[in-house]
């Protein structure tokens, strides 16, 4: 079962449940941020996008103190997969579950647009359905998505294969022009050292139907479903 956390101000929570459940056929449900425990049978935790607590202090800074986050931290420490998209990525960075921080976009404006992403790491549980170097078209929509770590830290993340996705051109070239927010190294997604916690700014839950623009989000969400099915077997 996929637990989709619902913080006050989460916006893409219902969309994530729709993508996982109605489109991809998995068991997904909302979990209230004030709950102290994850529901029994939780195989994976999804932190959706939005503006938790209005993002008034700093993106994700308040949500990390929600009661459910202690349970999520324990779940991650035990090796359970945790995926944060957009605001969820910000929460995971604030909670110390992922390295780095997300700053105001380079041009200081919110941007909602399709983005091309090059897959840099192919591994369960998040990208097993992808091929190395595959280009995914998944939208971004954020005002504070500029991934930041020091250049030294980025080198360490790269060496440890923790950079999962990078912004690129439709042809797969990682260029400055293809970088929509000024993220260091064009980083769009990173994972922790153990590889079971990942954050990304793009929205795979908004790329699961051709009708609404793209199905490339299924590569990421589908990988998680594959992983969960293997655990159940």
């Amino acid at each position, binding site marked *: 079962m996929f637990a989709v956390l619902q913080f006050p101000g989460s*916006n893409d929570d219902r969309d994530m*449940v*729709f993508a996982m459940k*109605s489109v991809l056929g998995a068991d997904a449900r909302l979990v209230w941020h004030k709950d102290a425990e994850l529901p029994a049978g939780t195989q994976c935790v999804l932190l959706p996008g939005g*503006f938790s607590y*209005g993002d008034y202090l700093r993106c994700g800074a308040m949500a990390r103190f929600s009661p459910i986050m202690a349970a999520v931290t324990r779940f991650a420490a035990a090796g359970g997969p945790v995926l944060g998209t957009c605001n969820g990525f910000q929460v995971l960075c604030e909670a110390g579950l992922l390295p780095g921080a997300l700053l105001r976009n380079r041009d200081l404006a919110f941007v909602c*647009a399709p983005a091309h992403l090059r897959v840099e790491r192919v591994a369960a549980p998040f990208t097993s359905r992808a091929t190395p170097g595959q280009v995914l078209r998944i939208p971004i*929509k954020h005002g504070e998505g500029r991934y930041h770590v020091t250049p030294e830290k980025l080198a360490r993340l790269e060496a440890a294969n923790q950079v999962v996705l990078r912004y690129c051109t439709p042809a797969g070239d990682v260029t400055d022009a293809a970088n929509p927010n000024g993220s260091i190294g064009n980083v769009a997604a990173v994972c922790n050292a153990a590889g079971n916690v990942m954050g990304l700014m793009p929205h795979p839950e908004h790329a699961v*139907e051709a009708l609404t*623009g793209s199905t490339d989000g299924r590569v990421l969400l589908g990988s998680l479903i594959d992983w969960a099915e293997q655990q159940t077997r």
Partner: protein
Amino acid sequence: MSDRNRSGSSELERSESGERARGERSEPLVDQTLAREHGLSDEEWQRILEILGRTPSYSELGIFSVMWSEHCSYKSSRVHLKNLPTRGEHVLVGPGEGAGAVAIGDGLAVIFKIESHNHPSFIEPTQGAATGVGGILRDIFSMGARPIATLDSIRFGPLDDPKHRRLLEGVVHGIGGYGNSVGVPTVGGETGFHECYRGNILVNAFNLGLAPADGIFLGQASGVGNPVIYAGSKTGRDGIHGASLLASAEFDAESDAKRPTVQVGDPFTEKCLIEACLEAMRTGVIVGIQDMGAAGLTCSSFEMASRAETGIEMDLDCVPQRAANLSPYELLLSESQERMLLVTRAGEERQVLDIFERWDLDAVVVGRVTGDGRMRVHWHGQTVVDIPVDPVAANAPLYERKQRVPADLAARQKLDLASIEPEADPQAALAVLLDSPNLGSKAWVWRQYDSLVQGNTVIGPGGDAALVRVKREDGTPTRKAVAMSVDCNPRWCWLDPRAGTIAAVAESARNVACTGARPLALTNCLNFGNPEKPEIMWELAESIRGLGEAAEALGTPVISGNVSLYNETSGRAIFPTPTIAVVGLLDDVERHAVSHFEVAGLAILLLGETREELGGSEWLQLRRGLEAGLPPSVDLAHELRLQQLLAEGVASGLVRTAHDVSNGGLAVALAECGFTGPAGVRIGARVELADGIRPDALLFGESTGRVLVATGNPDALLERARAAAVPARRIGTTGGSRLVIRHAPLTVLASGGPAASEVTSLIDAEVANLEAIWARAIPRRLEQAG
């Protein structure tokens, strides 16, 4: 009352400080002079004395002044609005409630409305626009609908004015900052610029929500003894007299001093309020609910009691407050945002209060419904308001204001085309048009809006109309989609308010039809100058007349709307700007048309007729410096036939691309079809136009009732068009990287095919180059220094 105990201790503190406050801030003496300062006429003052049989208290005077303001009472426009067609077989709720509702089948209804926030946005663009979005959202979800789509119509002065560059940036920031945070997609809109908005910008926000057809909530305080609940943000001192002194008066040099009347928005609270209200509505114990919008607690409580023919008794000491020492006058008139007033069944309010508590929102019982038709308000143990509901709410003054045809109207409409020098360089003209902020790309605006949240956006910003798939509240998708478009050509409305308004309705409906949807109903926001001037009143009355005619003829009843008057600064009014939003329904979302060419080798057909109409066109203004003439004529019967043809053509799969020909004419429309669309492709076209009219009218004239379509089966579509009595002709083919438009004068054709030498090339340009000009129209102007 148990629910008061939650704030028991602070209540005590408040009443102590309140005692002090009364000593320090005694209420002013209420007399005719004070009434005038409140914007009430001498006649209205006399009427108040008659209704009460005594001099009103200070709070009561404040109530009358806001309830009888133009903004709340529609006192200048109501006599005209009452003639609009508001009924139809699908209409569930017409004007008079927070918004109108239309059935879309499957047990579902869409609820929608457009509303202005012009005056506040000029004074404080970011907060003014943000709270405009917040206000329209509350109108929608207060009726039980989840808001699923926002459109915005925004208009500014020229971008060479640094003030207007800042206003544009501020307004877009405000709309985005609020809309993005509440999780409602902004899927379309329009952005316009004109000298006439230099002193008054326009910010009109549209929202559409989805509700169960049998689960629509109304703003009614029914059931004597039922508790009245205040929910949402605490009350502060912001926005007092926003409706009366800000929105119902002209601007002048002192207007910046009105900044404190602008409210401040909190989208996070709004987001929680949406979820809490929708959850509370599912309990089945809510009897009535209304947003505290303009004139706050006063307007909502009076309107709810008036609709139910009841009264309300209320204790202001129970109202959650975020400022110390609020007077009863301030508590009643504050326009603090994100607040709702609810009535529940007596004894069952706990269920509702618990839901708000779960979302960390204030919710307290502040009063009871009474049966005596009076509003009685208590504060610190005194009765500060005791007035009958109906004379204030339902029987506000009504004015049949004087009208006069503007003295310069004939001069505006005078245009002798023969004396207008023909366009010598069509390609240069096309570049100038594409580079103008009115015709250029609006991506700079809409990239700052989340257009994807909720996962239903089939066609987002940049299309003729937005198309949003209908998904039930439990997440089950339906096959249906809702199309919507917001439109107005203010210059046409200035040249002829009636014809211009008819054209706006026709264009909005045509845009909706271009997706394949059938237009269902419309909402409108009438932005005009000072109605006390007979010329402005004439414009307003003419415009409403045109609105009624077009809505009737196209079968799109007017189910909601808003009137914004006094858009005037130092005596200079805006062009009449009746913003129209038509909403349509598409039965099978998989079968829809887009507004870009997506495939090479398709036939391009032009539906509708091109006449020699250059009056009021963009070309005439940009190339000849003239805003004159009569707007293009509109044939409403043709529009209906065209809509029907499009719906059938899209449903049968014949039409994949359909794009309305509007501002800038055929040349601009052809270029736009070729620009990079959501599918990521850019496609040229080869077009040959055979016609007897002057080439510049052919390229840039703005004749209405025309749509460009791309089809793989032109013969079948031409046959359908013939059967539908819609003029149609094949004009070219998609493909290549260039837009090539050639002209074969009709006289040559008539003599048996054009001789090669007589076919002239009007346009021959790389689409990529045209797109680059178009894409930079707004950004390059914003990048100017200052």
